[in-house]
């Protein structure tokens, strides 16, 4: 995978070559990179699942020890604060798994108790046999940047493990030498889109810029004719 630094400075160099007096800053390009990369990443994951039936693990981010918090409002529900922005995918597929360990070291932690993802509207129907939320059959539903849980009310679960497909948030790219989570074959596409985007931004027509001139048309003087 390409590094942010490689992508951003490559684009900056190309844009500066064409528009040497432009004031494009590094963060602008990083913002464009995140914008386009997120679009491509979502499309790539959707296509991959359409073809193989599964989401690729390559772009999965694992959070092995995420604290399970208790809300001070909302009836003291237990929830997880999401560590980033989820890619917006149907059926919450950007949450690959949430699990917790049931004190059996012989079984890999992430294959033990797995949360099923539902919606808040569906939650009230979970009373059918085998579907009732329990500590061994817990559920989660996403509300903004939190995941509320069902089934863990009576047990003490300090932390959970999560595998998430996260969108790139340029505000959280602290290390420009980190790798941009995008397949190599899409980097060229991304570059093409960003250059197009940059060109469009820089070629905003001059007549759309407020230059302070008064553009009100003066009414033409009345023409004097000899028709009287």
């Amino acid at each position, binding site marked *: 995978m390409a590094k942010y630094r490689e992508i951003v400075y490559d684009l900056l160099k190309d844009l500066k070559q064409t528009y040497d007096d432009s004031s494009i800053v590094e963060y602008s390009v990083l913002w464009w990179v995140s914008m386009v990369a997120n679009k491509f990443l979502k499309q790539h994951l959707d296509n991959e699942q359409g073809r193989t*039936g*599964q*989401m690729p693990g390559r772009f999965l981010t694992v959070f092995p020890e995420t604290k399970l918090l208790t809300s001070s409002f909302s009836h003291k529900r237990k929830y997880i604060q999401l560590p980033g922005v989820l890619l917006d995918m149907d*059926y*919450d*597929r950007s949450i*690959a798994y949430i699990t917790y360990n049931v004190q059996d070291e012989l079984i890999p932690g992430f294959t033990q108790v*797995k949360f*099923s*993802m*539902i919606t808040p509207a569906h939650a009230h129907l979970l009373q*059918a*046999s*085998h*579907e*009732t939320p329990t500590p061994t*059959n817990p*559920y989660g539903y996403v509300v903004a940047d939190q995941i509320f849980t069902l089934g863990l009310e009576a047990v003490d679960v300090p932390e959970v493990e999560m595998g998430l497909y996260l969108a790139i948030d340029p505000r959280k790219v602290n290390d420009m030498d980190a790798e941009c989570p995008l397949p190599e074959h899409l980097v060229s596409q991304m570059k093409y889109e960003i250059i197009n985007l940059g060109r469009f931004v820089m070629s905003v027509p001059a007549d759309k810029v407020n230059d302070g001139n008064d553009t009100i048309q003066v009414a033409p003087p009345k023409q004097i004719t000899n028709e009287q």
Partner: protein
Amino acid sequence: MNNNDFIPIVDILSDVTQMVGDPGLDHGLSKGFYIRQISEAVEELAIDTYFQTLTTDLEFPTDSLILSLPTNCFNVKELYLYNGVCGTPANSRKVWYKRNYNNSQGGADYTARRKESGEEDPFIPSHADNYNLYYANIENGVIMFGSSCNSYSYVRIVYSGMGADITEVPLIPRPLRQAIIDWVRERILTIFASRDRSVMPLLNIARLDLYGDGRPSNPGSWRKAERYVKKMGTWARDCYNEYQQRGNW
């Protein structure tokens, strides 16, 4: 049914989720939902074929003469009374079915169209001399015993089960595996087709696998399972033929 091999439900779950394209359980249907579909498939097959025969021994309700049927029972096949130790019948007696017998509130008093004693009916005579009849009737999940059954301590009920108790996970007899897989697959794909019409071809294939195409060469997995369960085992059939030939049964 002549087999003692059972498949755990996770085997069916693994097959079905692959067949419907939901191996990650990330299409809005939870694992619990899948398990319930498998349980329902076993239940349907049990009711269609009576493949599950269970036996339960219970203490005889001396005072009330009424006893709730065991859970997971939908059809009583045999009913016996016995003395001795529970589960070890020292001497047993068959209980007969009596139509219209009703002591649903418990006790020896009852109603029936034809009673052992009582006022003489001009159309239905009583049968007061049959005092040693052991009978019962079943209404609303309750077995109502006649008072003469009181001389026994235990009841043995042989009945058809529906796979498992409603909150438990059934084990699936190995010869019925394909029927269960196809039934669950058809139901899950029906759900997916309601969301996305492009799933219809897959659903049609699943229905062909389950119900067949009307030709004898492809009866479908459900009918194959029914035929298997209802078919008499070779040993039983051979013995039965022998009895029939001798004619002295």
